[in-house]
């Protein structure tokens, strides 16, 4: 009976395993609305939106997990949630891609030294300010 009334649920993300264990029921925010998966569900493959995954454990408790989206695979005895660690939106991905391209261009132009130079200059300015402050304090003491 036990094997039939529960379904094995795995929630994994690229940066680690989030949950693994038996469940009575799993609720997932699928791309076309929230779905509940009971044991012996038909095989299903769908994308999920960012939201809450609820897992009902056999002892009647509920566990909540936040996922930023991802994919869901259902087999009669197994549910696998492939969760994204990052919340992704199309434009956000686009922006990240643009940034990576820009950096590549800067490298080709040889501007990377300039970036490092700017950082070093900022560091220098901080150090100078600190020295000035120390000198001031010394003068007061004398």
């Amino acid at each position, binding site marked *: 009976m036990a094997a039939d009334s529960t379904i094995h649920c795995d929630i994994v993300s690229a940066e680690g395993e989030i949950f693994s264990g038996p469940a009575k029921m799993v609720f997932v925010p699928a791309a076309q609305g929230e779905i509940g998966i009971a044991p012996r569900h038909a095989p299903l493959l769908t994308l999920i939106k960012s939201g809450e995954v609820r897992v009902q454990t056999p002892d009647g408790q509920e566990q909540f997990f936040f996922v930023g989206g991802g994919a869901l695979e259902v087999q009669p005895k197994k549910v*696998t949630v492939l969760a994204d660690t990052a919340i992704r939106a199309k434009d956000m991905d686009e922006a990240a891609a643009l940034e*990576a391209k820009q950096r590549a261009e800067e490298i080709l132009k040889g501007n990377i030294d300039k970036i490092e130079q700017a950082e070093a200059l900022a560091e220098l300015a901080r150090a100078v300010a600190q020295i000035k402050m120390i000198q001031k304090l010394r003068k007061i003491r004398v």
Partner: protein
Amino acid sequence: MPGTKEIRTKIASVKSTQKITKAMEMVAASKMRRAQDRMRLSRPYAEKIRVVIGHLNKANPDYRHPFLVAREPKSIGIIVVSSDRGLCGALNTNVFKSTLMLMREWQGKGANVNLCLLGNKAAGFFRRLGVPILASVGGLGDRPHVKDLLGSVKVMLDAYRDGTIDRLFIVNAQFVNTMTQKPVVTQLLPVETIDAGELQEHWDYIYEPNAAEILDAVFMRYIESQVYRSAVESVACEMSARMVAMKAASDNAGKLIGDLQLVYNKARQAAITKELAEIVGGAAAV
């Protein structure tokens, strides 16, 4: 006593260098352990996604995703994974060397090479080569996050989709053990056939909204997870390489201090002997 003072300051300076290298060694050792843990944690996701893709392939053998179709390689893309900082032995050099070998091999076949660089060291090295760089990301730190890598991976996947590149490789250091890391080249695209392992019965999924879209999303995540794993593995390699390099540096500093101490003692002894001789000589003269 001329000479002895200089030797003393030299010993002091080597000692302080040794302190630094020892500290770096210990920091690298603890970071390595954490990096290895992260490497292990990324494994379940990659395995699960592999299984899903395997099932998908078996469920609809007639549908070929663009990522599975091998094209005539006119142009290739290489993702180079390097560290952000140096002082880690020959780690980056080895990765760059095998990248160069791969580049030469494909250029010999008349293919263009496009690069995607992860880590500051790769950016510094490959910009001199005059090879087109499509994307780059640096400053990943000791804990690379998936979201930091997404942008560069997307650029490469888009390039593959629109035909700018026909093949995508990734070169990174592989963690063999603490003492050895070796550069490996892996082909990411087209995806080489994935075996689903044991599959009890034949079935097809219900797809929501449709098969192609899901397949696309799953494949993208598969590639991303591979790149992420490489980045994490590269960090583990960097830390262990740094640990070994710093241990060697500390040992060398210890040896140097020993030698200098010997020289110092001799110089001091010579000075004392000389002084004694002078006193004795002076006394005899009186």
